[in-house]
């Protein structure tokens, strides 16, 4: 089962949890100083170290140059790889679990970027899975490490644990209350970042935000995870109480039902319109106004992104064709 098809803890507010570890092999220059042959060699070393025993059956090894541009962008839309990784395939490879919950980017900014994505709020479990892979790798391959600076990374911003953890939150009530900027400033003082997950930096769409840790040096993995988890729980509690007030408002309930009506009957839906109406239907589903499972909305959010729609069609579509396909997919899912 893929992460976006699963139900999980706090799924009414938390879409997903991601944990990423950045690692480099001690004996090779970092990716920006490697040519294609050097990168291929690094990829093979990591592949051979990791894909043994059971993992050989549950993971696929994919050379990025064998994928089409659309397939690459679709992987980025599913958050399985970074946009940067999707934009250039030379000398890059991906180790992907069949469930698409573990993705290991090879020769992105660092030699190895292990990423685990789980549904709902699941930080400790996601870290544990990432850590297991890191342990398996570091027993077989010497990892670039310095006792003072921790894991050595190509960009010094990731020094230390090389750990980036994040949770994706649906915060329609808090963003309607105008509290987001204040909240972002508060969590920044605690070493975390809260920003829109979709849309331009200043204008997030779909009320979906990403909360992640910023500090990697001078803090243990456990402390970073705990810190993020406790702030996430506080934001969840705030969103819950803001939702209570919002759901007493008949005007808002009316908007949820109208959004539901449009999503069920529209012949064309742009990505932006779906994001906006989907946010209303999601809160309706989460709070029992509408009788649909909330993960239906998560699945739609992933499957109706432009390149993922193209991929499902096996070809590149015009924006208008995509809007028709999107509306059809939404209609079917909400039936």
């Amino acid at each position: 089962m893929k992460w976006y098809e699963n139900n999980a803890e706090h799924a009414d507010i938390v879409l997903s949890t991601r944990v990423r570890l950045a690692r480099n092999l001690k004996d090779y220059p970092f990716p920006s100083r490697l040519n294609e042959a050097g990168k291929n060699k690094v990829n093979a070393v990591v592949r051979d170290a990791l894909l043994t025993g059971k993992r050989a059956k549950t993971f696929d090894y994919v050379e990025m140059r064998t994928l089409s541009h659309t397939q690459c962008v679709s992987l980025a839309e599913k958050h399985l790889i970074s946009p940067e990784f999707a934009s250039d395939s030379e000398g890059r490879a991906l180790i992907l679990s069949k469930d698409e919950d573990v993705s290991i980017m090879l020769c992105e900014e660092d030699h190895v970027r292990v990423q685990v994505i789980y549904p709902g709020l699941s930080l400790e479990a996601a870290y544990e899975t990432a850590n297991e892979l890191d342990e398996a790798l570091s027993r077989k391959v010497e990892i670039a490490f310095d006792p003072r600076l921790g894991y050595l990374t190509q960009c010094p911003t990731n020094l230390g644990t090389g750990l980036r953890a994040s949770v994706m939150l649906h915060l329609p009530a808090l963003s309607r209350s105008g509290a987001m900027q204040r909240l972002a400033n508060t969590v920044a003082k605690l070493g975390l970042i809260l920003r829109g997950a979709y849309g331009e930096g200043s204008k997030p769409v779909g009320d979906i935000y990403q909360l992640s840790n910023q500090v990697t040096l001078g803090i243990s993995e456990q402390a970073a995870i705990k810190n993020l988890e406790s702030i996430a729980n506080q934001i969840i509690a705030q969103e819950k109480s803001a939702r209570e007030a919002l759901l007493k408002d008949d005007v808002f309930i009316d908007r949820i039902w109208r959004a539901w009506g449009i999503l069920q009957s529209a012949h064309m839906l742009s990505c932006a319109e779906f994001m906006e109406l989907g946010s209303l239907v999601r809160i309706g589903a989460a709070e029992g106004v509408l009788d649909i499972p909330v993960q239906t909305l998560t699945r739609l959010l992933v499957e109706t992104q432009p390149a993922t729609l193209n991929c499902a069609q096996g070809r590149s579509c015009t924006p208008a064709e995509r809007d028709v396909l999107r509306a059809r997919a939404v209609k079917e899912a909400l039936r």
Partner: protein
Amino acid sequence: MLCQNCNQKEATTHIKRVVNGEAEEHHLCSECAKKLGYDHFLDDFSLSIPNFFSSFFHDTMPALKGAGAEHCGTCGSSFEDIVRSGMVGCADCYDKFFDRLLPSIQRIHGRARHAGKTPHYTVEPDEKGADKVAEAPKAQTAEQQIAALEAEMQKAIESQNFEQAAVLRDKIKELKGDDRK
């Protein structure tokens, strides 16, 4: 290149992100980057800012431009290469240029010291290339072995197989040492 937002200042921040199914690249000045919400030293999952560190270097350390052409023995990077690209060349660069990198590292991380886990590398002898190399040329004389190993090392370096090259270099050293006895 000028900032694509204000068209006035030099673009120092390069952002790649997925918009409408296409990977787009944006070049922004530091002020516009901040205004548009890209003001963190963050390469999270939804966007990456590979050159942020570079712009940050230029902002804070202009005096270092004439620092000379000392190179890292492992990857060949000079400190200027690192400043220009915003990328450290290899693990040994951190050693070689530690004093010069430290001020910037501290600007990002403070005076912190690593507090997380440590890797545990356990050598598994039957899996190491070194032992396979050592076994094969047993019947040869020491000179033949060294010549073969040196050729192999050269090949390894050419194909950027540095791990293998390091193993071979140690092997050659060992053989040459034995000869002198």
